[in-house]
């Protein structure tokens, strides 16, 4: 049965879940929601498994019309969402009646919003995930890695017309638990093995100067502009690249590698951002200034475990 019809979309409106795992040795990238925290809250609002498929909407320009009564949830960026002209607050679940239109217009705070339906959106699972990776032609509604387009129909895996307030349905994410989108985020960076091969001045600057997000940014990576970092170690042989790696090519300007990154590469790295830092970064517009804070692996791991406990 038809449930939500896409009325407007862009190349940045993508079906996503947690991504593909166990396939990196085949050259297959991870994919998945860039802001995994917001994805989880959107699913939490509807009592879904936290990694259920959602629509990632970057910068707005997305609209759907309900073909039957629906309950939906939104988390992440404030993209000026409206139901038939009435504002919808982010971090809430809400009803979209048959014939009503949900529109996400433009960013007011943050970059990426996540739209959830009961049970998650139905997509074609490819290599264990329906995450859309356009470059690899994997995932999405039909498995071919395409962004959502006008006229397509989205289906929920669960009963779509549940009532807000019913068991497992939550009206909103408690204020105290919502992430804060800081004006100048401080991003935790787990120090990696090559960190000692950058010059002393470079290391000081890496952690004490502002880094500005370049407009050259996509789901593979985000370039940062700032002082030129100088790597003094030996040339590297290509090796696996983790999520969040902060690599430094010869021009000395770091690139943060994201979910759709290449799986191996040979540039030296300062280390890798933590998952929480990546969720913050996913909500930063080009031009935003960020800072790095050096953390060690064990401490970052413990913090991550503590953070995950909020979902039980």
């Amino acid at each position, binding site marked *: 049965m038809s449930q939500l019809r896409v009325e407007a979309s862009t190349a940045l409106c993508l079906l996503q879940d947690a991504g593909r*795992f166990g396939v990196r040795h*085949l050259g297959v990238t991870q994919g998945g929601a860039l802001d995994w925290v917001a994805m989880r809250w959107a699913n939490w609002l509807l009592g879904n498994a936290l990694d259920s498929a959602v629509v990632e909407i970057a910068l707005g320009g997305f609209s759907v019309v309900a073909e039957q009564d629906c309950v939906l949830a939104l988390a992440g960026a404030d993209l000026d969402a409206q139901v038939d002209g009435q504002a919808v607050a982010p971090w809430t679940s809400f009803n979209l009646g048959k014939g009503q239109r949900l529109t996400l217009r433009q960013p007011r705070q943050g970059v990426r919003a996540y739209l959830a339906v009961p049970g998650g959106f139905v997509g074609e699972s490819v290599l264990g995930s329906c995450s859309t990776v356009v470059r690899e032609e994997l995932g999405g509604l039909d*498995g071919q890695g395409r962004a959502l387009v006008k006229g397509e129909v989205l289906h929920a895996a669960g009963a779509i017309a549940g009532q807000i307030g019913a068991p497992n349905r939550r009206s909103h994410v408690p204020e105290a638990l919502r992430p804060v989108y800081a004006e100048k985020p401080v991003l935790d960076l*787990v120090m990696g093995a090559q960190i000692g091969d950058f010059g002393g001045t470079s290391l000081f600057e890496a952690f004490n100067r502002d880094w500005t997000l370049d407009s050259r940014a996509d789901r593979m990576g985000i370039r940062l502009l700032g002082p030129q970092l100088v790597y003094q170690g030996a040339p590297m042989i290509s090796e696996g690249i983790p999520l969040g*790696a902060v690599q430094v090519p010869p021009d000395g300007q770091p690139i943060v590698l994201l979910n759709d990154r290449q799986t191996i590469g040979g540039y030296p790295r300062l*280390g890798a951002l933590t998952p929480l830092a990546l969720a913050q970064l996913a909500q930063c517009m080009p031009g935003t200034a960020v800072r790095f804070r050096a953390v060690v*692996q064990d401490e970052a791991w413990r913090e991550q475990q503590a953070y995950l406990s909020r979902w039980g």
Partner: protein
Amino acid sequence: MTPRIEVVAIDSLMVRLFDTIDEGNMPWILAASQRLRDAFGQQLIDLVPSYTTLMVQFDLAPGEARQRILQALEGLRPDAGQAGRRHEIPVWYHASVGPELPVLAARAGMSEAEVIRLHCARDYPVFALGFAPGFGFMGLVDERLATPRLSTPRKRVAAGSVGIAERQTAAYPAVSPGGWNLIGRTPVRLFDREREGYSLLQPGDRVRFVAVERSEFINLGGDDSPLEAQA
């Protein structure tokens, strides 16, 4: 052998086994790979072998993961050769689908036939997969075939294109941009989501290229459309 273990991310460690690229590395990397898969079981998220390293991503406290890696690799011996598979990959070597074939021949001062003979003359280990799903970095080709990447990469390289970059060789699984010197094309599907294991090539496999005529290339399902024309 005592591998070095390095921090790469919150949930990942790099196991560094070697410092240089060598065909002799692969039996060790395969053996280490198998031991790590056994040792981590369900707590292994991903394992990415490359020329000299294995990146281990785990669902486990990093301290415990480090201990588990050390234990798993104690007394490591190279794989005796059962693990990797050997593939014969047919290639139609021709300038119409491999525009750098004449270029390589001219550079090396030899005939195109000799370039083809040298490219088919040895088994190449698959060092790593990367760049795109199913794209295997292989080598090393005869030194006389070593050629730097194109100074300007092509925007579109046809699926199945076989190329050389420095002393490495590879085949493109799908249409993509690419800067390798193209010398021919294979009809073989290198990445197929319906196939068990998805990718024809796995790290540590060995590949022998076999020259075929155009007619056989077509019979095997090859697409001989010129480079820029193929969708």
